[in-house]
């Protein structure tokens, strides 16, 4: 018996597809798919989550037993913040049963946020930079507006729905390299939603501020402070469109501009007298 090996023709075990072409088709397809999926799920998740009764949100937070703030060490600051929240709330259309609780945290973080259960957390880093009560009231009104709009629970609902879908799509999201592309595309689509929430909260807060003090002086101070703390140089101006697209919040400049526009449209006063912070404020801040 004779055996022989003939040379096989090339290309039997490989597909003749140009990798770059295939790559572009699939990458564009994947991004489009993810964007559409996340848009639908963010809307649907937020829509459903906003329909969860606030009382249920409160009950869930109770059972979770999450320690927010440091009320025991800082009773005066916590009491003052809650009193201010009460005054601001009177000028916001909070329905019955919707309430906020303000917590104070002595960490040096330049931020404040609203979370589920109507809980607001203010950091020392933010409070120590407040020049007057009007600015603080603007922040307070902004955060209460988030609770009023049910934004924390809506963001959670939309986020959970789209994260689960992305996990399913990538199988092991985040571990594969292509999974990162899918996740980044999903995340960037998601932040487009939080930005619209921020704008709505700014608008509601501004009108509450006007109702509380009779003018809106101090409303844009916060964003000027934010802007200064980021030390944005003019050389970055070219990438503003990109930064606008990538961030969870609108740009400080855009927010200041929107406030100015609102003041003009509504014919509000922007030059009223600023209310100083209470006498003990600096002392309360100094407590460790």
């Amino acid at each position, binding site marked *: 018996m004779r055996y022989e090996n003939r*040379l096989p023709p090339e290309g039997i075990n490989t597909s003749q597809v140009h*990798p770059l072409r295939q*790559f572009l088709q699939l990458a564009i397809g994947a991004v489009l798919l993810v964007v559409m999926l996340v848009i639908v799920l963010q809307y649907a998740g937020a829509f459903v989550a906003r329909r969860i009764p606030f009382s249920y949100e409160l009950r869930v937070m109770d059972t979770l037993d999450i320690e927010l703030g440091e009320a025991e060490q800082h009773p005066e600051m916590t009491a003052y913040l809650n009193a201010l929240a009460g005054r601001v709330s009177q000028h916001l259309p909070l329905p019955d049963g919707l309430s906020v609780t303000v917590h104070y945290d002595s960490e040096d973080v330049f931020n404040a946020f609203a979370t589920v259960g109507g809980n607001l957390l203010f950091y020392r880093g933010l409070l120590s930079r407040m020049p007057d009560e009007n600015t603080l009231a603007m922040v307070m009104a902004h955060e209460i507006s988030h609770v009023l709009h049910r934004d924390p629970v809506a963001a959670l609902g939309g986020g959970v729905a789209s994260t689960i879908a992305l996990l399913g799509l990538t199988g092991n999201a985040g571990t594969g390299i292509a999974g990162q*592309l899918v996740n980044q595309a999903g995340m960037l689509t998601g932040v487009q939603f939080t930005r619209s929430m921020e704008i709505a909260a700014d608008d509601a807060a501004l009108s509450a501020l006007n109702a509380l003090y009779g003018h809106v002086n101090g409303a844009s101070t916060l964003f000027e402070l934010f802007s200064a703390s980021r030390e944005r140089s003019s050389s970055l101006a070219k990438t503003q469109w990109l930064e606008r697209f*990538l961030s969870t919040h609108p740009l400080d400049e855009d927010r200041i501009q929107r406030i100015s526009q609102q003041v003009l449209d509504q014919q509000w006063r922007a030059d009223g007298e600023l209310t100083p912070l209470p006498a003990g404020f600096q002392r309360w801040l100094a407590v460790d």
Partner: protein
Amino acid sequence: MNSLLFQAGSVVALLVLGFLFGRLAEKRHYRKIIQRESETQALPVVASRYPPEDRPYRQQLVTGSVVIASDYFKAFLAGLINIFGGRVTPYESMLDRARREAVLRMKAEALALGAAYVFNIKFDTTRIATGKVGAMEVLAYGTAMIPLGQAVGIQHEI
């Protein structure tokens, strides 16, 4: 923001590097494979389990193994294909090269032993890296049929 741009930039850079170097390496490897296949064509490799009985043979196990790594571009593309399904084309050529290289290495060993045939050839494939960019081992093994009476240990140039 800058870190995000840096991340995106490094992914693009890795993709471009992976594509260029991966493609270059693949083309070069295929050229060598085709050349060596024609050089070693005289030694038949047979899948049959029943060796010829025309004359006495000494039998010996011969193996050829190769570890081949994917590149960033192939891994990325394969990940995208995983979403939509279909043939994982970037790995087809990678495994094709690995199998043929393994056979060539096995043949080299058989030729060094002075074999007339390699019978009962089999393949084994193992995934050996679990990082973001995978690697595979392909092992080819078979029974070298070395005619008795022939000097053993003749070195064949390949």
